[in-house]
């Protein structure tokens, strides 16, 4: 037993660590790690991953919320969309064939790689659209010199539509869909990048939680696998977040992209060769 346990913990710590450094979350890395190295079927990997994603989101959110980076109201509005998608996705995950899940996963990895390469800079808006104003979504964010800068938000319905897709992918594939969420908030709704990342991380808990509850209630979580994975991914993410301020993550970006593309290729190949 000890051998299996140490193997799972090592995989999970590694996935949590890389997920934290890349900003993509542990789910993107733990699902392929379980499928490729532990020879688990996609559904088992997805169930274990969803639960670990809830844990890492909660762990990382503590500091972001306390320090004011998370826009709580934006999160609450968009969670309506992600929860809808996640519940449908988790329900479908029990029906959709493994091969489709693996192909979808490969596509999501490529999307994450694309996002890592094309991250947009801050583009702070001073005027929000009427719906965003009515929902009081504007916030304040410190600039480089520590002064608070007011930002407004636009295009809530469009951002929400992409969030339904993010939730769907999360429930289907056991990932936080952080790359899609940040894209929706950063590209479409024009929130500052760090606010988008912190808010996405906060929302991931609810999105993955919705999926995890479906899996757990259905009895589709392998507890003996999900437990060490949740502990390991959380520990790895914690270590990554401690190390993050001392690393030049920009220089690691190419490494992350290569890892993502390789995993996408492996998952795609597994899916296609199994047909």
């Amino acid at each position, binding site marked *: 037993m000890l051998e299996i346990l140490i193997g799972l913990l090592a995989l999970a710590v590694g996935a949590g660590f890389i997920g934290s450094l890349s900003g993509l979350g542990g789910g993107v890395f733990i699902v392929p790690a379980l499928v490729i190295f532990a020879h*688990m079927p996609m559904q088992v990997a997805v169930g274990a991953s969803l*639960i670990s994603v*809830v844990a890492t989101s909660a762990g990382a959110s503590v500091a972001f919320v306390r320090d004011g980076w998370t826009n*709580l109201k934006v999160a609450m509005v968009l969670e309506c969309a992600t929860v809808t998608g996640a519940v449908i996705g988790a329900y479908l995950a029990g029906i959709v064939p493994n091969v489709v899940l693996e192909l979808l996963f490969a596509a999501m990895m490529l999307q994450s790689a694309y996002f890592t390469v094309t991250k947009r800079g801050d583009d702070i808006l001073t005027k929000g659209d009427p719906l965003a104003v009515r929902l009081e979504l504007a916030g304040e964010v410190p600039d480089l010199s520590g002064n608070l800068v007011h930002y407004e938000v636009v295009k809530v319905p469009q951002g929400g539509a992409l969030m339904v897709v993010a939730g769907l992918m999360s429930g289907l594939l056991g990932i936080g869909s952080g790359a899609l969420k940040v894209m929706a908030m950063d590209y479409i709704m024009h929130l500052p990048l760090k606010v988008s990342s912190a808010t996405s991380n906060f929302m991931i808990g609810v999105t993955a939680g919705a999926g995890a509850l479906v899996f757990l209630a259905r*009895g589709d979580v392998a507890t003996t696998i999900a437990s060490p994975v*949740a*502990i390991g991914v959380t520990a790895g993410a914690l270590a990554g977040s401690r190390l993050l301020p001392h690393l030049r993550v920009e220089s690691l970006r190419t490494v992350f992209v290569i890892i993502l593309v390789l995993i996408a290729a492996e998952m795609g190949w597994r899916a296609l060769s199994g047909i």
Partner: protein
Amino acid sequence: MPKQEEDRILREWTPILLRSILIAAMITLVAGLILTYTFAPDYYVEHYRAAQHGHLIGKETLGLLFDRVRQGNPHAVLTIGLFVLTLVPLARVAFCFILFIRERDYTYVALTAYVLAGLIAGMLAGSAG
């Protein structure tokens, strides 16, 4: 309640809530793994091999689960730990829901109620499926 006060409560209490449940879940999971290693290592290996073939143990009702915990069943302790972990988002949304009711911010009462309903519907859909 003024908006700043509401924001202060959210920013002060949300991290405490998240951290407390996370720590409780992690302690339960570690305890469950230690119990499994001590009392049921063969069961663990058997369960792991079954999962590799896509065989899972299936649904457990909460009543059955607590009975097993009382009997010191390590697997049930692990399941409880995982359930506690999934309570993190549920508790956080419920906390916001109650705060918005207190503040009579009905737009956000409706939004958080929808998210809560979604989480509960997911659980019911899973139980039924």
